[in-house]
Every structure is written in structure tokens, then in C-alpha cells.
């Protein structure tokens, strides 16, 4: 499982490659944020704050880290992904469409009557393996996937993206115990640490800190990164740690990419007005990233 870890001696040398790769990833992330904005504006529904905070994490995973395509999913040769924070589905759908799981034009049907692109992922959507949306479920499912790969001796990795608010769910900690108990070094959980949940700052609602010490106490290897820096994200996500499951705390900004949405709990699922939509679009298009 460690074979894809870049040897330390090569890390400095690959820095240039990382930088040009970062430009590619930034362009992707910009397109995904624009897709998210369009989906939510058209549908008049969705969770824009978390979709924007997690957009760079998803971009790093799907375009730089995971072996994941319609082919790998069909043959079982690739890596696996579970979106535990199912409400941040807009970016996930935009990526699946972009990766060829279904036509991009279908994104316009988000939340529409009889659309399969509903407000939380489920397996009728090509590319999605498991339904999520009730918080705290995804990590257990990811543990099961990682355990299956380990039982079968497959070099598959399993990635789970969770929110910081859902760390209050007890089942997350049942799963955290199981992951280290079974020594699932092929499992990585990323926390979209945007510091906010629907009613306000996580510290005020139910303080999840110290996140890394908690996971470390459960036997996990922990790292924290800037969740909007592709170099940090891809480096941390590429790495495995022997038989220890990996926690990557990605420090993010809720609403990232649109000035008036950033760090505003109200933008958890607020809808942009027509003026806000145009301003957001302009900012995203010109966003220096």
C-alpha cells in the first residue's frame, strides 16, 4: 500500500511537477465551482457553503489522487470514494459528469422532478456506490470497503470525505475504532474543516476539537493541510502510513471562492439572488485561486 508514496528524496524534485499540476487542478476546481453555482441557482436549492469548501478536496481526489473512472469502477480495479457529508453533493455530481459517468447536460436536472440528481447521493447515480446524507454513516461504509479490499489482498484505497459538524455523530467514532482495530492502512478520511455548520460555528454547536488528537487516540495517523492548497492536499492524500488509517484535516473556508459567501454560516444552504448569482459567477471566473 505504501508503494505510491513518493520517496522523500524525490519530493523536492517533483515540486515543479506539482506546481504545473496545481494549475491544472485549479482550472478544474474553478469549473466545478461554476457548475455548483449554476446547479444551485437553477434548482433553487442545495448546499452551496459546503460544496464550495469541499470543491478543492474533491478536485484533488478525483483528478490527482484516486484511480477512479467508469472503467475502474466496473472492473473493481480502482479506488473507492464515499461522500459522508452527502449534502455537499453538487461538486461530486459535477465531477462525476466531467469524468464521464453521465452527461454534463444532466447537471441542469439537479433537484428537478424525477431527476436522479437529488439533494443527496445515492447509487442510482452512475459513479455513486452508496447513499449518504444522514450524517455519520459514510465512514462505517468506507471501513467495510477498506476491510473487503484488505481481506482480498487488493491494493485498493478507500477515501471518505466527512464534514466537521458530523463529527458529533457517535457512529463516526464506532467506525474510527474499527478502522484502526482492523489496521486499515488503505483507508483515508478527510475532514472538511470549514469550522461552520448549519446553525453556526462548530465550536459553539458541539466542539469537535481536538480533532486530530481524538483520531490519534483512536489509533489513526493524522495530518492537517490547507484544504485549498493542491500541493498540500495531493501530498497528504497520496501518502499512506503502513497499517494505520489516515486522517487528513483539510482546513477550508465555507463558501470558498465567493467573497460574500466565505465564512458565513448563513450560506450553508442560502440561495443566491439574481444579483448575487452574477457577482458570484464573475468572482469565480476571475478568481485568482
Amino acid at each position, binding site marked *: 500500500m505504501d508503494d505510491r508514496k513518493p520517496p522523500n528524496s524525490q519530493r523536492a524534485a517533483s515540486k515543479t511537477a506539482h506546481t504545473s499540476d496545481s494549475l491544472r487542478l485549479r482550472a478544474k476546481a474553478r469549473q466545478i465551482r461554476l457548475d455548483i453555482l449554476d446547479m444551485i441557482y437553477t434548482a433553487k436549492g442545495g448546499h452551496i457553503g459546503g460544496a464550495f469548501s469541499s470543491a478543492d478536496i474533491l478536485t484533488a481526489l478525483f483528478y490527482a489522487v484516486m484511480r477512479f473512472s467508469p472503467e475502474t469502477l466496473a472492473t473493481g480495479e480502482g479506488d473507492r470514494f464515499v461522500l459522508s457529508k452527502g449534502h455537499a453533493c453538487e461538486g461530486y455530481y459535477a465531477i462525476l459528469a466531467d469524468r464521464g459517468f453521465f452527461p454534463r447536460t444532466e447537471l441542469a436536472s439537479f433537484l428537478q422532478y424525477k431527476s436522479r440528481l437529488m439533494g443527496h447521493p445515492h447509487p442510482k447515480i452512475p459513479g455513486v456506490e452508496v*447513499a449518504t446524507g444522514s450524517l455519520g454513516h459514510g465512514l462505517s461504509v468506507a471501513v*467495510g470497503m477498506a*476491510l473487503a479490499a484488505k481481506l482480498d489482498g487488493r491494493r485498493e484505497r478507500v477515501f471518505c470525505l466527512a464534514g466537521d459538524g458530523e463529527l458529533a455523530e457517535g457512529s463516526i467514532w464506532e467506525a474510527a475504532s*474499527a478502522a484502526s482495530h482492523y489496521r486499515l492502512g488503505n483507508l483515508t478520511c478527510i475532514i472538511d474543516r470549514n469550522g461552520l455548520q448549519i446553525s453556526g460555528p462548530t465550536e459553539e454547536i458541539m466542539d469537535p476539537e481536538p480533532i486530530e488528537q481524538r483520531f490519534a487516540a483512536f489509533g489513526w495517523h493524522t495530518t492537517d493541510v490547507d484544504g485549498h492548497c493542491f500541493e498540500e492536499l495531493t501530498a497528504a492524500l497520496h501518502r499512506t502510513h503502513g497499517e494505520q488509517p489516515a486522517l487528513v484535516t483539510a482546513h477550508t473556508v465555507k463558501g470558498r471562492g465567493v467573497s460574500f459567501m466565505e465564512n458565513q454560516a448563513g450560506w450553508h444552504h442560502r440561495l443566491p439572488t439574481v444579483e448575487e448569482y452574477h457577482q458570484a459567477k464573475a468572482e469565480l471566473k476571475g478568481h485568482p485561486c
Partner: protein
Amino acid sequence: MAEPNRKAFSDTLLALAEANPDILALTSDSRGSASLNQFASALPRQLIEAGIAEQNIVGMAAGLAKSGKVPFVCSPAAFLSMRSIEQIKVDCAYSGANVKLIGISGGVSYGALGATHHSLQDLAVMRSIPGLTVVVPSDNQQTAELTSQIAYMEGPVYMRLGRQAVPSVHGPHMPSQLGRGLMLQDGQDLTLIGAGEVMPGVLEAAHMLEDGLGAAVRVVEIHTIKPLDEEIIMAAAETRAVVVVEEHSVHGGLGSACASVLSQFCPVPVCILGIPDEPPVTGSQSEIFRHYGLDAEGIHSRIAAFWQQLQRQRRRG
């Protein structure tokens, strides 16, 4: 008296798992209660201990199933059907994960331990979940047959098993098929419908009714609560009344399922004999059955009263 159904289950599962390495048994510190000690020694790599964490065990099972495994989650019915119900709804049923949920020590198997350990709402909850098959076998033979069938079918299943040794209800000439009710005996006056470990009492009560009232009693066993064999239930409307007996709350179980079908399509008086809407009395399973009139004598006397009431109504009508 034969063996407990959990033993018939674990013997069958061991044979299935020996032939198919993708079949896994998952336990929540419950391998002894599930009679899986032999399985654990024979196939240690196919037994996954998940500890006392019912939410995680079901979520994990969904992940294993989505990776080609056929996980059998063997956990006390009381906890599996309540503590992990949302994982069953979302991770298994809604996600279409091929998880087999085996509720062990079901009903009032753990009678003396109190209501925390009873599963008397499990069928009501499980049968309301779209896509979930719900099974309650009565004897060893049926448990073995249905265990094989659910292992080979694709899709999530809840199967409730009891803890005590049970007598045989079916001969080898009467195999059970998932989704198909069994007519254990035919009769034109009255239909008794039951499922699971009340069946020996139901059959005995039917004989007592035939001897005492001279009534011709039909006995139908519905081992698959969902999908329900509506045909065999609707056929019961040929008889003058239907009595449903179950080791379950009178609300939402097999009685409700039968009443729903009959009242919509072919109304006929229905009497539901189950556990009343109260915290059940303490005792062994057989003592609790006796207390609530779910043993042969109790079923007989309650049906005799119901029957006389029907006769009076008929004379008045």
C-alpha cells in the same frame, strides 16, 4: 425437540461459507448467542468481529457488500432492529446493499431479561422499509432452507431467529420457498395464520378447535413477512374468520399486514393475537407465551371465545 433455529442457521451458514469465501459472518460480540463458535474456528478469516457497535456493524456490512462480499450480520434482534435501523434503511436498503441482517434471540427469546432485550417491534419497522425482505422461520428445516435462499438472492434481508430449541413444524415433504406462504392444513371454517416460533402452538390449537368446536380449521404459515404472499392470505377470506398469531406487538406486525390485505380486498373478521401494547411480563419465552395466550391452550381459548362471538353475531345478523 430439535435444536434452536440459530443452530440450524449457523450450520447452514458454515456450509455455505465453506463453499463461498465471499460469505462472511459479522458479529457484535455475539458469536456465542448466534451459535457461531464453530464457524469461528472453522473459518476464522470469514468471521468479522465488530464489537458492541450496532450502527457501525451495519454500515460496515454495506461497505463489504458493495465490494462483492455477502455479509451476514448476526446481532441480537432487539438491538439490530432498533439501534441500527437508520443504517439498515439508508446504507442497506436505500443503497441496495446485499446485506443479510440476522436478528438473533428474537421476539421474547430473552424474556426474563426485560423489554430492553425483546424485539417486538422489529417486524413493524422492517416491513415498512422499501426493498427489504423480512423473514421469520419457525423450525430447523425451514431456517436452513431460507438461510440458503437468502444467501443466494441479491438484496438486503432481515431474518429473525429465536434462541430456544423448537419442535419440527414441517416434514421434509414440505419445503419452504421465500415469498410463498405455506398451507399446513386446509379447512373451510376458520383460518389461523402465524409465523415463527408460535407455529407449533398454532397447529396444536387448530387440532383442539377441530376436536372441541368441530370447526374445519385452515392453518397458514407466513414465514416471509415481506414480500407478503397476498394470494394465500386473500384466499383465507373463503373461511369465515381469520386469526393471526405472532410473537410481536399487536401493532404493525404480521397481523397488521394480513388485516391490511384482507380489509382492502376481501373483508373478513380478523383477530390479532400478539403481545399487547405494554411492557411485557417477565419470564421465559414459554411463560410469556402462556401469559399472553400465545401457547396452544391460550390460542384455543381466545379463538373459541372469538368464534362464539362470531356465531352470536351471525345468529343476530
